[in-house]
């Protein structure tokens, strides 16, 4: 592989793999064979669903995590811990509540040993640049979310990093505030006012990526890897209503909802029960189906448009769509969602009749739930401990996902009256089930 530092390459990630050892001989693979490079002057987005490992990758690049295999080259040198010249902006802002705005901003400079006068001058510059003038002596808790994230930006900018890492920096903000911050940042960036060379941003918001970045790396999950790379050559400031803009957004939706190519080798062949379930409520399922059947969709909807109308982020809409697909109530294809006859039947039924339909869909399509039910029917006392299912799931997924999957199964199964569950004893049973 050609490692050429003179071409302006700042960062190179080579064959990165991140896996967590499990009790059984299986490993939980979060990242598999990730390669990417970053040059000076670029703003790049890592776009993927939550849980796809993109934040893990960002932390590896920041030197906060060590990859299990592969290496990260920063300016041609292997990365050892947090590097100088890399600064990060956090989704949760990560401001120290006991430091004022000014002290927070100066923290990185203090750590670098910059003399006090210089420190104050640069902090003042950063604060003014990012529009925080007047708030120098405020504490983070006195600020609104948008102002807090501005402090996060100022803190990262004053150390004059070559690479600015951003971990979903706008996703904790409301829509209007996020948009203001995005445009401010893009204006400063395109006018070359920021003391940084390049930006790597993690996001799950497709429009945000297209609005801001020159290059988009589409991340897929299980295990996380870069599956597509797109260039966005539109000039700044970009217009969301521009047909070119819309086309790129549509293309990415298509990429992200494309059915996995058949026969793709899935590292350890997971049995059916290990299907990850998204924590989607039964009311939401019914709500989306009803919306799809009604006007103006008449059974088929374009996902970006649907997301816009329902005020749902991609990260919320996709799991919902995939759940409908799992239950065979709808199908996803190329950025569209289409309702199936089973889905229509479900909408047509009234509340009482929906339960058996839902139960049938669960037993047919969710192996975990049909297994729980089967175990309960076979046991002499019709009881089973939840722990054993959780353990079984943990062979194939992280404990968090195993718990989430089991919780979802419990809530769906309860709604369908397939089994009941005693939270205190953590036991499934067939009591009170018709």
């Amino acid at each position, binding site marked *: 592989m050609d490692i050429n530092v003179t071409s302006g390459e700042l960062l190179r990630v080579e064959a990165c793999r991140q896996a967590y050892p499990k009790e059984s001989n299986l490993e939980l693979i979060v990242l598999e064979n990730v390669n990417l490079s970053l040059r000076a002057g670029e703003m790049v987005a890592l776009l993927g669903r939550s849980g796809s490992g993109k934040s893990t990758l960002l932390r590896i690049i920041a030197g906060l995590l060590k990859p299990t295999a592969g290496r990260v080259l920063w300016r041609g040198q292997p990365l050892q811990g947090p590097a100088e010249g*890399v*600064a990060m902006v956090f989704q949760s802002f990560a401001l120290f509540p006991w430091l004022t705005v000014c002290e927070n901003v100066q923290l*990185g400079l203090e750590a670098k040993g910059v003399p006090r006068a210089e420190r104050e001058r640069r902090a003042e510059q950063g604060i003014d640049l990012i529009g925080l003038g007047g708030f120098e002596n405020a504490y983070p808790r006195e600020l609104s979310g948008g102002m807090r994230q501005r402090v996060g930006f100022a803190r990262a900018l004053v150390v004059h990093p070559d690479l600015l890492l951003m971990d979903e920096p706008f996703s904790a903000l409301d829509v209007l505030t996020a948009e203001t911050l995005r445009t401010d940042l893009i204006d400063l960036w395109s006018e070359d006012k920021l003391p940084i060379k390049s930006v790597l941003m993690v996001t799950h918001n497709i429009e945000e990526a297209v609005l801001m970045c020159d290059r988009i790396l589409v991340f897929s999950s299980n295990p996380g890897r870069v599956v597509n790379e797109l260039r966005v050559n539109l000039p700044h400031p970009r217009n969301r209503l521009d047909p070119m803009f819309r086309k790129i957004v549509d293309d990415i939706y298509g990429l992200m909802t494309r059915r996995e190519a058949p026969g793709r080798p899935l590292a350890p062949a997971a049995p059916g029960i290990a299907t990850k379930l998204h924590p989607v409520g039964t009311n939401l399922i019914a709500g989306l189906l009803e919306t799809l059947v009604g006007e103006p969709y008449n059974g088929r909807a374009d996902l970006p448009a649907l997301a816009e109308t329902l005020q749902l982020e991609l990260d919320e809409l996709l799991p919902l769509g995939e759940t409908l697909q799992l239950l065979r109530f709808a199908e996803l294809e190329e950025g569209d969602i289409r309702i199936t006859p089973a889905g229509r039947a479900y909408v047509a039924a009234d509340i009482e009749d929906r339960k058996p339909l839902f139960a049938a869909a669960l037993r047919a399509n969710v192996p975990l739930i049909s297994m729980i039910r089967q175990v309960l029917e076979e046991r002499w006392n019709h009881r089973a401990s939840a722990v054993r299912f959780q353990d079984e799931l943990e062979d194939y997924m992280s404990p968090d996902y195993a718990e989430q999957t089991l919780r979802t199964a419990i809530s769906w199964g309860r709604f369908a009256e397939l089994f009941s569950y005693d939270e205190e004893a953590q036991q499934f049973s067939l009591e009170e089930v018709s």
Partner: protein
Amino acid sequence: MSDRPFPSLVAVRRLPNIWDLAAVAFVFGLIIAVVEIARHTWQPISAPEALAVSLDPGNLPNYALRTTMRMFAALAASLAFTFTYATAAAKSRRAGAVMIPILDILQSVPILGFLTFTVVFFMSLFPGRVLGLELAAVFAIFTSQAWNMAFSLYQSLKTVPRDLEEAARAFRLSAWQRFWRLEVPFGMPGLIWNTMMSMSGGWFFVTASEAISVGDNTWKLPGIGSYVALALERRDIVAVAYAIVVMLLVILAYDQLLFRPLVAWSAKFRFETISGAAARDPWMLRLLRRTYLLQMIGDGIANLFFRFSGLRISLWPSHRARERAPSRAGDAAWLTVLLAVIGIALWQIVTYMAAAIGWDDIVQALRLGCYTLARVAILMILATLVWVPIGVWLGLRPVWARRAQPVAQFLAAFPANLLFPPVVLAIVALDLNPDIWLTPLIILGTQWYILFNVIAGAAAFPSDLREAASNFRVQGGLWWRRVILPGIFPYYVTGAITASGGSWNASIVAETAAWGDTKISAHGLGAYIAAATEKGDMARVVLGVAVMSGFVVLFNRLLWRPLYAYATRRLTLD
């Protein structure tokens, strides 16, 4: 009500299992023990075996049981006190205005000094019976348990979420129903946590309160405390070791059998709809939930309790009655009565004290108070220097934090006064200066509060802040100063308040020590109170205790309260 499951299913499910057998044995054993002890307490003091304590280690299980029974009797009294006192203080604005400051003072007063007088009172209630002595011991333990429990419930009653309060009113729950359905469940996690803390405090007193001397008479109630006292008199260090081991086992047992399950169970009353990472249930709770017989008994009790707490009793005739505006005239009358009572009380105290003590006594008590203050302050600083770095190190490593946390809590629960004898022995043997070497005993039992609070603080330190610090390469002194110390500070202050209060109390026991006939004593207010108690010199006990309370209250008001307020205002996230 639920659908009835098939009868055959019920029959199968209710078949007793092996654990039921264990449960039956356990329950009957407990009943027999209680009856046996109750019978004993009615004996006359003069009966030869009533107050006989022997150093035979074979007696220790019996002694341990009796000591534990006293603990639980006191705990029951504390709960009764908590439910009445805290409720009255929270429900009536005028009563609260008096009752809460009283509680605050009682919390900081070292009650240990008053033991002598309560003994006389309780013995006069049941002249010539062991019961009087038992009650005096139980009362001593009660005084170490009740206050913080009452405070906890009061705080909860005052902070019941408004929407729940409104829902309870909208559905026209009676005051009684509202109390049991809303207010008590809401206060449950805090109350149980404080009960656990109280038990730890109680052990300290139980060992001090079983061997009671008033003037020339000394009585020893059979129990671990008097066993240790006797061992000290007879210079039997092996017996002391036995007692320590038994004590460890007892504390381990009630911690595992009672408090772990209770704390886990009370988590369901927590007022957070988001469920955090749930720890696995302690084994005892799992056992209780799996043992059908115990579950049936438990269901029965729960059912009874549910009916009892669901009664439509109300002190107020209608729900609107409480909404009326407070009357000015009533307030004024109340204030006048209060001032009159305070005035009379002050007059009584001054006349009584003036007869017995002079200005030099006061000056002396103040001077000794300063010595003890210096001890407590130095030890707090030392303990902080030692335990804060260790606690941070442990707390930032989740695996270690999980292991260390229960150990630190356990050490805090262990009555440190049982560990005094070996230290005293060393001081006597090596002829060390008691003014210096008795000092560490003050903090022996209380330092753990600092440790486990720091561990909790470091473990709760937000991971994004750690990442940010690491990303900006904040290290060394800057990291301690800017990142972790402010982060754990609120937790540290919580621990330090408990530790410092406990240390003042411990000084009464720790500043004097005896090994057989050899008595060693340090200069300090604790030793002063202990000496006055031994002589039965009431005026000087009162003076000593009053001065000590003054120091504690000043310490709290001038140092800990402002620090705590600062910590919650500035150093917490929201």
